[in-house]
């Protein structure tokens, strides 16, 4: 520093600080920022206009198209996109799966191999899925992160979408912690339940092909017996184990406490199309841990939640073999009911930093966590959602649906608490 004038030193310092400030945004660009739900993200896709028209025309097909993806100044080329969804597929506002590794096996974006652009066509409030996943995580079960985004295709706004973290090995590694050897738990067998019929864990016989409704998403090239054999054995145990051995034997395949917890959270959210869905099981992944027979449900696609405030707390439990026999054991039924109460408390938890009294010192009724989150996201996306001309519902229906969510957030907890107490009195 000797010989350096104060002015020159000052200039250098300013340049260094400026350089640091300039590089900060790049350093901050991470998966966490991508799924930051305190801001609306902006995603830009560039593809050939004929491909975009073809994708919309063939929206029922899983045809991939080459695309360039841009987010916050980062552009990834050689990305594949395709139409996705089941009932949500739309030619006007297609839901999209974005695969970084479709054309180049090793390519990732912020560490992700893929993510989903949910078109929000089945949820008039646009908030159900995002709020459900946040609630699962709040109660300690893994669920994909989500954030809202303006989607531009070839510089044209094509609607408000939800960015949804894909359930893949990266997600498993982040969500499930360490395996038995201290490594990342993501090398087991991942299955996506592919809804095709009214199925509720009945035993389908020893033919493993019957179990391929659980679509293998990892280790697909292994032998069928390796992939689906333990699953068939689990379903057999669920159906055929005598009552007095059920806990011991089926616990080899499922952590029954987590099963009860998953079912309870789905129920609190009045999920009508989940594991206990109206037309059979739907909308979940199943993960079998490394070097183990044990499996766990993973929440997925929760846009049919918030069905009604008075959604029966024991709805369809008797129709699903696993749910019926698990909750038939008092230990797990108790855990189920306790989780419902946890959920009610969590949903109604006031902001710990908010004043509990008004300026006159009188106690005030503070909004719970769920209501606050609905309002926070509603305020964030309202103008954007109203400007989305591609959504298959009008703005009045959007506002009405938001009001329905707020009513649910305010009233569901009380209903659940009352009925848990009633259930315990039986």
């Amino acid at each position: 520093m000797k010989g350096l004038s104060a002015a020159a030193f000052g200039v250098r310092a300013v340049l260094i600080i400026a350089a640091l400030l300039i590089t900060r945004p790049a350093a901050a660009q991470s998966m966490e920022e991508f799924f930051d739900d305190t801001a609306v993200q902006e995603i830009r896709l560039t593809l050939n206009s004929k491909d975009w028209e073809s994708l919309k025309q063939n929206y029922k097909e899983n045809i991939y198209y080459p695309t360039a993806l841009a987010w916050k100044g980062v552009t990834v080329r050689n990305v594949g996109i395709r139409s996705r969804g089941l009932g949500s597929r739309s030619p006007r506002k297609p839901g999209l799966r974005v695969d970084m590794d479709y054309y180049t096996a090793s390519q990732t974006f912020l560490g992700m191999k893929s993510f989903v652009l949910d078109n929000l066509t089945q949820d008039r409030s646009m908030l159900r899925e995002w709020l459900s996943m946040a609630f699962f995580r709040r109660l300690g079960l893994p669920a994909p992160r989500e954030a809202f985004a303006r989607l531009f295709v070839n510089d044209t706004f094509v609607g408000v979408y939800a960015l949804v973290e894909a359930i893949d090995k990266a997600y498993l590694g982040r969500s499930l912690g360490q395996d038995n050897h201290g490594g990342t738990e993501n090398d087991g067998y991942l299955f996506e339940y592919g809804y095709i019929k009214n199925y509720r864990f009945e035993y389908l016989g020893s033919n493993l092909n019957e179990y391929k409704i659980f679509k293998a998403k990892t280790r697909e090239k292994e032998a069928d017996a390796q992939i689906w054999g333990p699953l068939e054995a689990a379903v057999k145990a669920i159906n055929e184990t005598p009552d007095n051995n059920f806990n011991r034997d089926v616990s080899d395949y499922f952590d029954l406490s987590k099963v009860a917890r998953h079912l309870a959270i789905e129920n609190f959210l009045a999920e009508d199309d989940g594991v206990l869905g109206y037309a059979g099981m739907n909308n979940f992944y199943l993960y079998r841990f490394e070097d183990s027979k044990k499996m766990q449900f993973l929440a997925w696609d929760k846009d049919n939640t918030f069905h009604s405030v008075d959604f029966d707390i024991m709805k369809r439990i008797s129709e699903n073999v696993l749910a019926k026999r698990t909750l038939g054991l008092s230990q797990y039924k108790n855990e189920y009911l306790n989780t419902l109460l946890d959920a009610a408390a969590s949903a109604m938890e006031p902001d710990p930093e908010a004043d509990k009294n008004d300026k006159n010192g009188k106690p005030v009724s503070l909004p719970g966590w769920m209501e606050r989150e609905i309002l926070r996201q509603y305020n964030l996306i309202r103008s954007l959602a109203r400007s989305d001309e591609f959504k298959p519902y009008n703005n009045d229906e959007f506002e009405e649906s938001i009001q329905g969510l707020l009513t649910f957030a305010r009233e569901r907890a009380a209903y659940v608490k009352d009925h848990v107490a009633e259930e315990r009195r039986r």
Partner: protein
Amino acid sequence: MRLAVLCACVLMLLPRAAAAQPEVRFPPPSFRAGEFRIDFRARFHLDFRGLDAEEPVAPEGFVFRRARVAIEGRIYDDLEYELDRDLRDDKRPWRDVFLNYRKFRAAEVQGGKFKVPFSLDQLTSVFSNSFVSRSLIGTQLAPGRDRGVMVHGRLAGDRVRYRGGWFKHDGDNTLFTEELEQNEFVEEPPVNNTIAGRVDLTPWEQTKGLRRRLQIGINATSGELDDGLFGMRGRTVGGYTFFAPMYVGGRRMRFGMDGLWTPGPFSVVAEYNRVTDQRNRQGLGDVDLPDVIAEGWYLAGTWALTGERKSGGIDRPRHPIFQGGAGGVEIAARFEEMRFSSAGTGGEDPFTNPRAANILPNRDRAITLGVNWYLNEFARVLFNAVRETIQDPVRSPLADRTRFWTGVVRLQFGM
């Protein structure tokens, strides 16, 4: 065992009449009525593919590859015709179907379905080829047959032969006859209004000496290329796609040149072909992309060990089998390459996606070694061993290696 079955087939197909009358040649059956003449022809190929071949490099086993029957002839002196059908092909059974008006030797006019005049290898009948399969470029970069009209003739004392014409599409070699990965199926050929021309020069035709048998050819085509996933596709000898089609649109242009030299029992032939597909507005955001380049070459040589001349000799061996001889034996070798890339990078890294500006190149390099046994003028057996090397391991048909062998034995019978 399978080889033994093949050999048995060879013996069964040998014409017995040939044994009875060794000195007599057998012209194809022919019928004449005044100014009308019909010649009947029949040709068959039975292949056994095996050796080191592995799925999906090549399916193993017997294949009744071709069963062609044809009639050809003249109506009066000036009008030639040909009708050629492959009984094994349900989708496109007709091969050559044309009329040729030959009143003026310097300017004959031909119309119908026949080969677009491009590529020496493609224009040489597969029944006269020295190898089981044509070269990669002759099979895949050359157009093949199409419907059109052509003017052709001989000039300068037969030292110049020219062919030039208009064709409805781009030949049947570039049609996609199988479903593509992305469910895109071509109902209509994607190239229209192809103009093609070829000139063959035999400058020393009228002289004596080794130069006499030298022939040089150049050819080119140009056609209108529809927008779509219609780019050239690269396949191995066994049919595995090592280069998937790209989105193209604009014009498809070809250029090629070749040389053939057949001194005595030897032959040397070389050819280079290049296909350029434009990609107007085919990029992301509808930008123009650098052209797709498909190009390749081969160098091949043969030697008739039994001494027959290559040109007009080896197919009629001096000592046919069952006529006191063992037939004619020829050895053959071919070195070839076919590669795919883009004409520029577009400022991007190389990728494999079908709209990549900078296409990640891939190449198939093959060496074919063959022994051809000409039993008599009707039958021959070809033994070929092909070693291929794919440049990009990811697009190789075998997961663990880029080099592989394919072996083919072909029994050919024709009259």
